[in-house]
């Protein structure tokens, strides 16, 4: 009898713990989307797939990233060439850091001490903002206006791309100086990276202008080592995006898969890592047009929930974000957001 009671108590305890864990999971992640042709940033709760917060007052927001403690949200502001600092809980703008030029995308160093910002106005640069003081600490000259920047998985380098110069520049984050470059055939657009078993950076996966696929750059040799072409599609012409056939690429948090947006196929493709085998795809929403055939959603960016279960894609032409179940490749939600949603990022709350 007492044994049965003990088993029942144990079962109840497990259920209680599971119930406690549910809201904890729900509270641990938020998906941030900058509405690039508007003045807002939409924040989605990935448990309900609803917009739970709208940050206002930032005209033409571009990149979005976070302090390590999750209390601050950093947003590059194209209309005023500043880095806006936002209180995560209230959504209020609490600081503005003037930058050396017109900013594009941003990243935060792994130690949480600096925001790294691409400067897109000529001649191009990387701005470093010190998070403790919220001041511009350094402007690193580079060869070409910059669009996107990332911190390598090991945290040692910043990797920045230039559309105009068709070049990747790698900066040592200890010395804050460029250490190597690689020139590609087309303008460098979004990138992502995977890691070796020891945590060092393995490869950079790069989307370039006028190529419907991605380029693979070996980090150790600094060389292009492969190209992977995506399956063809019929979109892109009406959307005037044939020169940018793909935009948005990301490695899942578990490092096992690579996800690649296609504007031409109006879809996202999943590849296995490290062997780069095509696993499948998910179609994205269509845009209805008066008197014309529907056009594509013009997918722009990718982010994931920390548990790898859902991938989120910003659809710039349809003012929405698609939530796709990574196991079934089914679109589980289309979430309305603001005007031309582009950069998208996941905040994992401590």
């Amino acid at each position, binding site marked *: 009898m007492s044994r049965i009671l003990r088993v029942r108590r144990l079962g109840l305890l497990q259920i209680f713990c599971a119930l406690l864990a549910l809201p904890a999971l729900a509270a641990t992640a938020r998906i941030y989307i900058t509405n690039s042709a508007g003045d807002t940033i939409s924040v989605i709760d990935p448990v309900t797939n609803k917009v739970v917060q709208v940050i206002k007052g930032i005209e*033409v927001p571009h990149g979005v990233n976070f302090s390590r403690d999750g209390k601050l949200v950093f947003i590059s502001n194209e209309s005023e060439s500043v880095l806006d600092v936002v209180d995560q809980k209230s959504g209020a703008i609490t600081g503005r850091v003037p930058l050396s030029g017109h900013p594009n995308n941003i990243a935060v160093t792994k130690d949480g001490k600096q925001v790294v910002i691409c400067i897109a106005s000529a001649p191009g640069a990387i701005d470093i903002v010190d998070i403790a003081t919220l001041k511009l600490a350094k402007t690193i000259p580079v060869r070409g206006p910059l669009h996107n920047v990332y911190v390598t998985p090991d945290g040692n380098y910043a990797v920045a791309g230039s559309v105009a110069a068709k070049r990747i520049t790698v900066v040592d984050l200890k010395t804050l100086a460029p250490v190597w470059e690689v020139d590609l055939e087309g303008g460098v657009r979004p990138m992502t990276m995977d890691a070796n078993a020891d945590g060092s950076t393995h490869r950079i996966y790069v989307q370039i202008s006028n190529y419907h696929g991605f380029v693979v750059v070996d980090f150790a040799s600094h060389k292009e080592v492969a190209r992977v072409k995506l399956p063809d599609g019929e979109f892109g012409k009406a959307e005037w995006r044939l020169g940018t056939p793909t935009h948005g690429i990301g490695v899942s948090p578990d490092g096992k898969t690579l996800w690649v947006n296609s504007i031409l196929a109006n879809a996202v493709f999943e590849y296995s890592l490290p062997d780069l085998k095509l696993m499948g795809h998910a179609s994205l929403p269509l845009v209805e047009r*008066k008197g014309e055939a529907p056009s594509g959603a013009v997918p722009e960016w990718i982010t994931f929930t920390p548990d790898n279960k859902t991938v989120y894609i910003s659809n710039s032409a349809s003012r929405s974000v698609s939530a796709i179940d990574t196991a079934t490749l089914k679109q589980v939600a289309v979430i309305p957001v603001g005007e031309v949603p582009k950069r998208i990022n996941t905040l994992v709350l401590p």
Partner: protein
Amino acid sequence: MCRWTAVLATAFLALILQAGSARLSAKPAPVAHPQSPAADSATPALDYEFFKARVEPIFLKKRPTHARCYVCHEEANHALKLAKLSPGNTTWTEEESRRNFAMVSALVTPGDPIGSTLLHHPLAPEAGGDAFHSGGRQFESQSDPDWMTLAEWVRGQKAK
């Protein structure tokens, strides 16, 4: 019989001359949008004063939830390239407005609002606009008051 031959010969000659004249005066055709109706038969002139008083302010206007046209199109690498405002100014100088007028005029087909890139591109696709504008759906419908002002200018409306 001779009279009919003369009539036919005259008509044939007239057709030849007309075709030749059309070839001589041929200019690159403007890009026609799929839904563009035929432009007005008499091509109206674009009025500078109307442009300055009514059209230019639209480029600087902040519409709720939208970025201003000027923010993205200021000296930008786009078809619509607006003059940069002089430091401290909230509107364009006469010289800057003249430059804007020349540049924006190249993006319209006088008499044909929906066939004009200026009006077609930022109009919502659901309302007959382009599939995608990186500046978003600035005008949700052809009834938007600002869109209608742009259309008035393209139809040749003069400043009062």
